[in-house]
């Protein structure tokens, strides 16, 4: 019997991973959300850009997000290895070395920032550079392992794409783009804590100070509700900016009512109730939260099309 058969992790020689493994370093699923929100930010911004410049801007915003994903996988390889959800990522699985992830992340970061600056403007490029810095240094290196509020502040990194898309067109930041940022920022904590409630062993094993671990599950349920309440005025406030219209207002009213009801249900439950139905409510709210964000930005897009007609 060889070592390879006794150990489930089979290391690949440096530089010998498949192309798909390198793509996986860029977290393509997270990138899809970045592409969509950045695209909406770009399309609803006043002025507009040529399709080629718009396409290039979205592509390099997405690549910048992917680069920060690779840098995150480089730094968090030890945590990823002990979490079931992340153990199959290329670095903990031994397909790509941590050094390769670091190298790819750094090069793609530089490329995406420079190309976004050349394609649009240097303010948007600066925002993208700050986003990568924030995700890697502030969230991954500093907050994630230090405080249970990691999700709250770290969520800012995922909130920047629509603001960057907007800045790529206008070269500035306005109330509308700040509220698009705020929508994702306030949405992130209830979204992730709903996930943490039914993936408890994963975060416990990794020693990541998730709120469920440090403050208990009852407190996490309460915080899900509090942050959802705080999210509502941001989501509704966006309806009264020039970029939103009747479609967004109608969508925001309905979606926030449903999300609020879901967060309330989570708060009213205890662990015994949750375990009895295998965290059905928490899983439902988590899935709905994905739809919630998608539909808010989708509604902004529909309103922009509505104005064009």
């Amino acid at each position: 019997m060889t070592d390879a058969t006794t150990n489930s992790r089979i290391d690949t020689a440096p530089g010998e991973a498949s192309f798909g493994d390198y793509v996986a370093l860029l977290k393509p699923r997270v990138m899809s959300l970045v592409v969509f929100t950045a695209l909406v930010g770009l399309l609803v911004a006043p002025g507009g850009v040529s399709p080629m410049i718009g396409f290039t801007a979205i592509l390099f915003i997405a690549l910048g997000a992917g680069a920060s994903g690779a840098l995150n996988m480089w730094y968090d390889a030890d945590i990823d290895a002990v979490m079931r959800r992340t153990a199959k990522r290329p670095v903990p699985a031994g397909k790509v070395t941590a050094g390769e992830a670091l190298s790819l992340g750094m090069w793609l970061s530089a490329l995406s920032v420079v190309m976004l600056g050349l394609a649009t403007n240097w303010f948007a490029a600066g925002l993208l550079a700050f986003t990568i810095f924030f995700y890697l240094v502030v969230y991954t290196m500093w907050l994630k392992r230090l405080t249970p509020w990691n999700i709250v502040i770290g969520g800012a990194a995922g909130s920047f794409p629509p603001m960057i898309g907007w800045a790529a067109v206008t070269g500035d930041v306005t109330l509308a783009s700040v509220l698009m940022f705020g929508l994702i920022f306030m949405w992130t904590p209830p979204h992730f804590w709903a996930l943490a409630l039914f993936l408890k062993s994963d975060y416990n094993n990794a020693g990541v100070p998730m709120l469920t671990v440090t403050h208990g599950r009852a407190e996490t349920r309460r915080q899900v509700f509090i942050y959802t309440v705080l999210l509502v005025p941001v989501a509704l406030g966006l309806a009264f900016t020039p970029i939103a219209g009747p479609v967004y207002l109608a969508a925001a009213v309905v979606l926030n009512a449903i999300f609020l009801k879901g967060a309330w249900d989570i708060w009213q439950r205890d662990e015994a109730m949750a375990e009895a139905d295998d965290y059905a409510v928490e899983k439902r709210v988590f899935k709905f939260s994905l739809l919630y964000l998608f539909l808010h930005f989708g509604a902004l897009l529909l309103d922009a099309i509505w104005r064009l007609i």
Partner: protein
Amino acid sequence: MVDAKGLTETHELHRRRLGRNVGTALCLLGFCAIVFGLTIAKVREGGLLEADDHVPRASMLPITEDTQ
């Protein structure tokens, strides 16, 4: 004795290398296409472009008020 099969049969490693090389080539081609397309888009929206030809000309003079 050298194993002849190693020279004729495609190993999983070779398939992986081929995939990586094709992927890299497509990325580079895509990047070239983007830079080309971006250049065209920038030139089209740039209006009148006038580089310095090292010769004094009227368009280089500062715009002044009409003194009539």
